[in-house]
Each structure stands twice: as structure tokens, then as C-alpha cells.
């Protein structure tokens, strides 16, 4: 998809004024953090597991060539194939070629963020193959022609009334007078519509939460079971993956699984954990006819060995965005590309370029809540700051902001001058705002005073009062 991250400010403005979105975000704020906290309180060894999980991924990243080769070798040994793709274009072409060879008309899809990254749906549709999303959230946004606003809850920006409207508009074969005001009725309707499509699909596409090197297996976790149906009933199962997903062993995958669902939704485990190893064998009762892993790079290997390498530990749990006060204010679409929130603020500039996505690492107060909940201990604020350093070097921030910062830094490096300037500023501000104690508007802080007051200073700086007091008491 075409990123709109450069328009983050305008996107955010729209989001702040969108009443439905704000209602949905309020529910999210009240939900995820409390559920995660409760799940973790029930598992005393959670922090030790985080350390183990981090160590597993650090080990993989340090020995990536070995594990990538082992994974491919074992996929082949199980009768599958691995396709290495450098770009979204290559990945899309690879998927289409498989569909064409199998004469596939429809493709069912389980949840996969890589498919969003490569804009697979648009590509397949443009080439005469119909993609059908089977994850409820993904299905909702597909029929609304939107894209996910959250990596594990793609339709979290919507309230159920909006979903009901979309179902009425799309499922025209059903009774128009039916009631759709409760979430379970919506789920039941989607299930009924989708079940038929599972049965008629030719190819199933899913993502992967893990690629297990020792067995050549891929693993997905879902709460709807749609992943299983997607992959077992088709001529071919295509797994879209990237190098973040690689783990050495099944044992390692289970360690990370123990932190994944707890961090994401506060569940101890997702409802379905599905291990896929190769295509259907002669003795199997079901399974796909072929098994393909499309392994996308799209700029990730260039992050290795840089200050952004730690980002490749990300397991896409969404805890960082669930706890981010900026995400909770503007929602995921404001970030303008596939990955929103703090993890998106680090990853998006890496994948689409900092010229496009320069706002994202700036749109953070560095409150540190994302890092404090990240199961993989990714230092997200630190990496956002690295992006800001690159932007500063490339002079990408607005000229007025840079000029203001320059004047301030000049003064801060010259204490006597700084004293004079601070004294003058304190006096002037106190003279004009002192009686009320605050300003309702200030020329250089118009953005600030639009929605809140700016308190006025007391009148003299601490340093000048301190010096006066030392003089009075005769101290040195």
C-alpha cells in the first residue's frame, strides 16, 4: 500500500475529530492494559521468560545464515518449498505464480501482516484472483475497503454499529430486517458467510508467528480457528513470513508462546496454536496439496548490524501500541502504513524510508511505557531517538523548529548569557501573565494554548534569587 506517514499530522487531526474512532479507542484503553497486567500477575516467572525469549531471538539474529539454511533444508525435507523474496513485488509475483499454476480462482487468507506489507489483496484482485479474508477483523476491513489499524486487532478502530452497517451493505442475500445489534450476532453472520468460502477456496494464505528451523514447521496462533480451515482444505498452503519469525526449535517457540498471548490479549494462550509441517502426506486425513513458505526481506536484512537490529526481535504482540498514549489518542491509521504505534514508529522508517515516515519516531513523548511492556525487551524509545538523530543529520525537521533549537542550544552552552536570557524571559512572562497566573494565549505557543492555558512564571529565576540570598546571608 501507498504510505501516508508523511501526512501523520493531518491524519492525527482527522482521528482526533472522529467520534466513532475516539469511542473505539476509549474501549481499547480500558481493555488491553488491565488484561495484560492480570495475566502477568498470575505468572511470577514472566520477567525471566522475557529474558529467555529475548536471548532466543538475539541468538537467531547472531546466527541467521545458519538458521535460515536449516529452516529451508527442513521445509524441503518435509516436502515443501521456500521462496526467498527481496521485495514486495517479488513476493506478490511468487504467490500469483503458484495460484496460476494451480488454476486458483479464490484464495482464503488467515491473518498476515506481511500480506498487508506487500499489498497482496490488491495485487491478486488486479490479476483475477479473489482474496477472501477469514479473520473476522480482516474480513470487516476488507469489505469496508480499509486496512488494519492494529497488528492483532485489525478492526479495533470500529464500533459494532459500523460493522453492522457494513454487513447489511455487503450481505444483501440475507434478511434486511435482521437484528445486528449484538457482537455475537455479527460473529455468527460472518461465520455463516465465510464457511462457504472456505470450502470453495483453491489456495490458503496465512502468516506465521514462528518458523521453526529444526523441523521446517511454521506456527500460527489465532482465536478464531480460521487459520486451520484456511490451510487444511486447499490445494496449496502459502505461508508469508519474514526473518523476525525464525526460532531454532519447537521448545524455543513454546517459550516465546508463553509471553506472546499474555502480552497481546492477556490470555494465557491463544485459542488455537497450529503447527504446519509440509503438505498432506498419503496417510493424512486432510491437509494442503502443496506447502510453500514465501520469505520476504523488504529491507530487514539491512537492519542487521545497525542500531535497529533489536527491532527484529519483535513478535508482533501489539503490547506496545496497546499501552501507547499516542496510539490511544489517534489510532493506527494515523501512522499511515501497515505497522502503527511504537513498533511501527521504529520499523516503518526502516522499511519505507525515514523521508516518508519521519514523523512517526517523533510522535512519542518517550514515556517509556512501550519498552516497559515489550515481551522481547526492545528498547523502542532509544531506537526512535536514533531515527531522530538521522533526521537531524539529514535536516529533515522543520526549519523554524531547528532554528529555535539552535538559539536555545547556543544559550544553554553559555551559562552567563543563559542567566540573562532566563531572567528577562521570567520577568516579561510574569509581567504579562502574573496577575492571572496564566496565559490563555501566547504568540510563540499558539499550539499549546489552543486547548490549555500556559501557567506564568513566578517572576524571578531561581538562580538570581539564590544569588541574592547568598549575598544577604554573607555566604560565598
Amino acid at each position, binding site marked *: 500500500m501507498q504510505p501516508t506517514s508523511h501526512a501523520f499530522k493531518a491524519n492525527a487531526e482527522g482521528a482526533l475529530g472522529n467520534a466513532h474512532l475516539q469511542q473505539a479507542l476509549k474501549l481499547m484503553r480500558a481493555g488491553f492494559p488491565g488484561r495484560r497486567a492480570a495475566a502477568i500477575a498470575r505468572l511470577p516467572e514472566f520477567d525471566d521468560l522475557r529474558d529467555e525469549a529475548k536471548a532466543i531471538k538475539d541468538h537467531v539474529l547472531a546466527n541467521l545464515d545458519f538458521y535460515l539454511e536449516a529452516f529451508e533444508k527442513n521445509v524441503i525435507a518435509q516436502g515443501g518449498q521456500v521462496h526467498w523474496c527481496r521485495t514486495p513485488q517479488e513476493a506478490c509475483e511468487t504467490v500469483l505464480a503458484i495460484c496460476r499454476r494451480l488454476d486458483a480462482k479464490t484464495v482464503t487468507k488467515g491473518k498476515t501482516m506481511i500480506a498487508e506489507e506487500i499489498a497482496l489483496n490488491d495485487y491478486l484482485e488486479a490479476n483475477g484472483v479473489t482474496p477472501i479474508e477469514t479473520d473476522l477483523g480482516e474480513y470487516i476491513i476488507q469489505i469496508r475497503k480499509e486496512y488494519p489499524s492494529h497488528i492483532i486487532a485489525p478492526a479495533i478502530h470500529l464500533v459494532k454499529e459500523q460493522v453492522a452497517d457494513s454487513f447489511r451493505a455487503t450481505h444483501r442475500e440475507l434478511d434486511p430486517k435482521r437484528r445486528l445489534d449484538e457482537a455475537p450476532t455479527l460473529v455468527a453472520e460472518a461465520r455463516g458467510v465465510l464457511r462457504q468460502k472456505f470450502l470453495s477456496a483453491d489456495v490458503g494464505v496465512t502468516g506465521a508467528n514462528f518458523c521453526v528451523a529444526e523441523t521446517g514447521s511454521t506456527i500460527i496462533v489465532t482465536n478464531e480457528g480460521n487459520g486451520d480451515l484456511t490451510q487444511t482444505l486447499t490445494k496449496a498452503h502459502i505461508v508469508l513470513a519474514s526473518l523476525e519469525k525464525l526460532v531454532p526449535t519447537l521448545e524455543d517457540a513454546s517459550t516465546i508462546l508463553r509471553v506472546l498471548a499474555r502480552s497481546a490479549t492477556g490470555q494465557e494462550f491463544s485459542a488455537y496454536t497450529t503447527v504446519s509441517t509440509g503438505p498432506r502426506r498419503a496417510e493424512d486425513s486432510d491437509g494442503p496439496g502443496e506447502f510453500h513458505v514465501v520469505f520476504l526481506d523488504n529491507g530487514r536484512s539491512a537492519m542487521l548490524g545497525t542500531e535497529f537490529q533489536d527491532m527484529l526481535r519483535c513478535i508482533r504482540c501489539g503490547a506496545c501500541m496497546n499501552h501507547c498514549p499516542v496510539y490511544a489518542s489517534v489510532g493506527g491509521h494515523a501512522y499511515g502504513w501497515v505497522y502503527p504505534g511504537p513498533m511501527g514508529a521504529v520499523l516503518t522508517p526502516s522499511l519505507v524510508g525515514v523521508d516518508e515516515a519521519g514523523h512517526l519516531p517523533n510522535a512519542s513523548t518517550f514515556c517509556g511505557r512501550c519498552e516497559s511492556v515489550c515481551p522481547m525487551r526492545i528498547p523502542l524509545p532509544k531506537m526512535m531517538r536514533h531515527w531522530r538523530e538521522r533526521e537531524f543529520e539529514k535536516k529533515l525537521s522543520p526549519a523554524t523548529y531547528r532554528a529555535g533549537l539552535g538559539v536555545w542550544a547556543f544559550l544553554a552552552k553559555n551559562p552567563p548569557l543563559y542567566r540573562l536570557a532566563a531572567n528577562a524571559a521570567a520577568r516579561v512572562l510574569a509581567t504579562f501573565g502574573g496577575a492571572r497566573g496564566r496565559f490563555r494565549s501566547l504568540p510563540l505557543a499558539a499550539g499549546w494554548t489552543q*486547548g490549555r*492555558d500556559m501557567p506564568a512564571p513566578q517572576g524571578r529565576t531561581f538562580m538570581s534569587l539564590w544569588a541574592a540570598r547568598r549575598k544577604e546571608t554573607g555566604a560565598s
Partner: protein
Amino acid sequence: MPEMPPRVGLFVTCLVDLYRPAVGFAAVKLLEQAGCRVEVPLTQTCCGQPAYNSGDKADTKAIARQVIAAFETFDYVVVPSGSCGGMIRLHYPELFADEPAMFQRAQHLAQRTWELVSFLVDVMKCEQVAARYDGVATYHDACSGLRELGVKEQPRKLLQSVAGLRLSELPGAEVCCGFGGTFSVKYPQISDKMVGDKAADIAATGADTLLAGDMGCLLNMAGKLSRLGKEVRVRHIAEVLADMTGEVSPIGVGEALR
């Protein structure tokens, strides 16, 4: 022979210096009450965060060098802000990771640097303060103090010893107020939305007073509360602990309106 009182350098912070000298004097009083000798080096300006968080590493390092030179001879450096305290304690050593000599000096300073309230409790072992404040207060945990320096129980412990004060816990006290330094300048609308949510949470506690340990957050929250017409008195926690609330009006309240 009694131990020599520790020699403490007060890092005033630029916002306390400019906006609210009362917080600096409250810090001095608390430190002296705890048995410290307090000095205020004149060559301090700011910890450098505006530059650091804007990606301007060269200016940040220049300012950090200045702070290190001004403060490295003290037994302790105490800061009435978790944000500036965290900058010196965590980020100064990171800045000089590639310069061994400076790294050592930065590390030396970092190990001696404390946020005010945690210094009083964790280092000086203060159990209580001699202060009175009649009111119901709620306390916001400013982000850097909480997550970088572990300031959580210490302020609550000392507030419990203030005569007349009842603490009403703030739901979501650990959620950012939306200040974020330069963030509030670059993204004022998002910042305003965040502080609006915070103001609603504060009002819901029914407290008549809001306390926190960081001037930036306090200015932000006081500005929003007053714009919304909420009658909540906003103060830096040091003013209450030092029993100095009679000497200065709450943040954002003019002398004429006291």
C-alpha cells in the same frame, strides 16, 4: 565522631529556574533538613534533553560536558525532576559510550545522581517530613521518574507523613500526561488530547490538589485543568513536603487571585 554531612549539588533544572524557584528552595530546605550541605553551581543551565530528544547529539554532548564538569566533585547530585535526573543518570553514560575518558566521568556522575524524593527516602533514609497540608491530594507518576528511576513508593511514603493530607490514588497514574517536552510543541493537538484524558482522570478522583515531581508535567496538567475550569490546586510535591505551600500560590494561579 559524627560523619561529615554529605555535600550535595542541586541541579535546579531549567523549568524550575524559569518558572518556579519555590521548588528549588523547597528542595534546598528538604535536603538541609535531611542533613545535607547544599550548593548550587552557577554554570548549570539545562540537562540537554531538548537537544537530545531532537536528535542533536553534538549540542547534547556539549551541554552534558558542562554539567559533568560543574557537578562531578559533589558527593551527590540531586534533581527535583525524574526526567532531568534520568537524563543524567541513564543517558549521559550512553552519550559517551565511544569516549572512554568521558564515559568514566559520566558514569561517575550518574552513580551519584538522584531524583529529589527518592534521594530523601532511599539515600538519606527519611521516614517522614515535618509538614502540614489540609486537603485531599492525588499524585501523578511522571514517566521518567517512574520507569527510568523507579520512583513510585518514595513520594507516597513521605506524603503519608504530611499532617492533614489524605492521598486519593489517581487511576492511570502511570500513563503519560502528554507533555513530553518538545512533543507538546511539535504535536500540540495530540498532547492536548492526552492531557485532556489525564485531567478527566484527575477530576474523577475528587481530589482538591494534584501533586507530581516534574515541572513539565505540572505545567501541562495545571494548564489543562485551569482551561477546563477545574478547581484543582497543582503543586510540585517538594512544596508540600517542605511545608512551603503558604509561601507561593499554586501553579497557574496569580498572586492577585490567591
